[in-house]
């Protein structure tokens, strides 16, 4: 089901311009855009949430855990009508709701405030548990983390627990730009797989591959999509 896009004044090609309003740069390097394609495909084709349903109990939840470099996130929220374009120019300033790390109480459509790494996945586990406890089996919970962020012990706690209890409504996107200090043999997916998750690893710039990975069935198990992008360095 696609609830967004058709009547929007923005599409994917507008995102660089929206980001420029925040950064002042016409072009953006791989680090600034590492999350951009995954975010776009999620908000454009996967997530069942719109500005009109941003408070609905049965909406899909997207939690940005990797709160660093949120320009791509704000650009997508703008393109999808959550955030007014006029806000972007003030990015990071005292009177702006848009900080260098998002605050859920200030940004329409932001499910969590993030910035300190390793908080989004445990919050997402709790969100999935809370929906399940209320019998809300429809909504999906998505959380975006960075590959280096998976070094945080809190994420280790969350991914082992979610795998063990088969938290089916939980989905993780790992944007992998090789920034983890020691890396991991087999990539991030190996770690999720060993804890019982469904996993897929795809080109994080290929929209169709991302869409297929995001929508792959994973009965009885949480789902992890590793989106490989250019190395940070």
């Amino acid at each position: 089901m696609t609830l967004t896009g058709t009547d929007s004044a923005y599409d994917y090609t507008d995102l660089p311009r929206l980001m420029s309003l925040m950064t002042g740069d016409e072009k953006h390097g791989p680090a600034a855009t590492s999350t951009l394609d995954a975010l776009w495909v999620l908000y454009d084709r996967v997530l069942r949430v719109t500005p009109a349903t941003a408070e609905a109990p049965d909406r899909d939840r997207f939690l940005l855990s990797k709160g660093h470099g949120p320009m791509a996130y704000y650009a997508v929220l703008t393109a999808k009508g959550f955030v007014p374009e006029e806000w972007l120019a003030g990015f990071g300033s005292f009177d702006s709701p848009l900080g260098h790390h998002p605050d859920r109480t200030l940004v329409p459509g932001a499910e969590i405030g993030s910035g300190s790494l390793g908080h989004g996945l445990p919050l997402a586990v709790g969100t999935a548990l809370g929906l399940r406890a209320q019998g809300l089996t429809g909504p999906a919970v998505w959380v975006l983390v960075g590959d280096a962020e998976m070094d945080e012990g809190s994420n280790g706690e969350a991914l082992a627990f979610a795998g063990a209890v088969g938290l089916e409504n939980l989905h993780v996107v790992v944007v992998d730009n090789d920034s983890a200090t020691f890396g991991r043999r087999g990539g991030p997916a190996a770690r999720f797989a060993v804890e019982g998750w469904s996993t897929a690893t795809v080109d994080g710039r290929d929209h169709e591959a991302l869409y297929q990975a995001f929508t792959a069935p994973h009965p009885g198990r949480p789902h992890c999509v590793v989106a490989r992008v250019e190395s940070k360095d």
Partner: protein
Amino acid sequence: MDTMRERFAAVTTRLLDEDPRLAVLLAVISADRFAEAARAHPRRVIDVGIREQLLVGAAGGLALTGMRPIVHTFASFLVERPFEQVKLDLNHQEAEAVLVSSGASYDIAAGGRTHQAPADLALLDTLGGWTVHVPGHPDEAEALVRHAAAERGTRVYVRLSEQSNRTARPVTPGRFQVLREGRAGVVVAVGPLLDAVLEATRDRDVTVLYASTVRPFDAAGLREAVAGTDAADVVLVEPYLTGTSVPFAADALRDVPHRVLPLGTAREEVRRYGTWREHVRAHGLDPAGLRERIDAFLG
């Protein structure tokens, strides 16, 4: 008489039956006491294993879906170990929760320092917006747990202890109770230290206030009690880190020249095992230890 911890498990088991918005989050500790509740409500009694960062983080997530999580483990693993989760996943997200600790300052005396958290409230005080209950009796623990569970939208810390007063007092969240009135000063007794305070001050002409809820701090009640004495001398007797409530008392009395004697647990480690009763004496929080210092202060 059952302990506060046993009472908490029993009353919370009943509350789960009554209120579908409540959930209990555990990290192994006390899971045996919630076995019956877990059978009745398998999706609302959740043991995450020995994962305290996830314990508090998941509570934040549950709250974001409209649930009111009741989160329980020993104080050291509930407030101190996952403190950034308390700060960010609860406060910063504006997520509601009830944190219920057991173990208190020295209950697990034989367990040593690793299982003691006398600074839990001092740490929580660095954040705003927490209601804090320190019951002095299992009946008070039951009443305060019920109050905390029903008070939607808030963040509440309930600090349970093995130590208990002989009789329960009515709970009055937000207000200190006047148990005795005198002219020579005001002694504020927190939770399970009330019996010791009453005994230590038995033959002194002091006002005794009882606090089973310490945050919000009843500034008006303290001011009123001090106004009724000849000397603005205040003794704060708390079963956790000495001086934890001094900033609140100082603020309450900012327009009154006053003296404060803070009594509580020492900042230094007591590298002893034994029982909590022995630790009460080691910190000078038994009647004799309190009396000696209160007498010296009031003259």
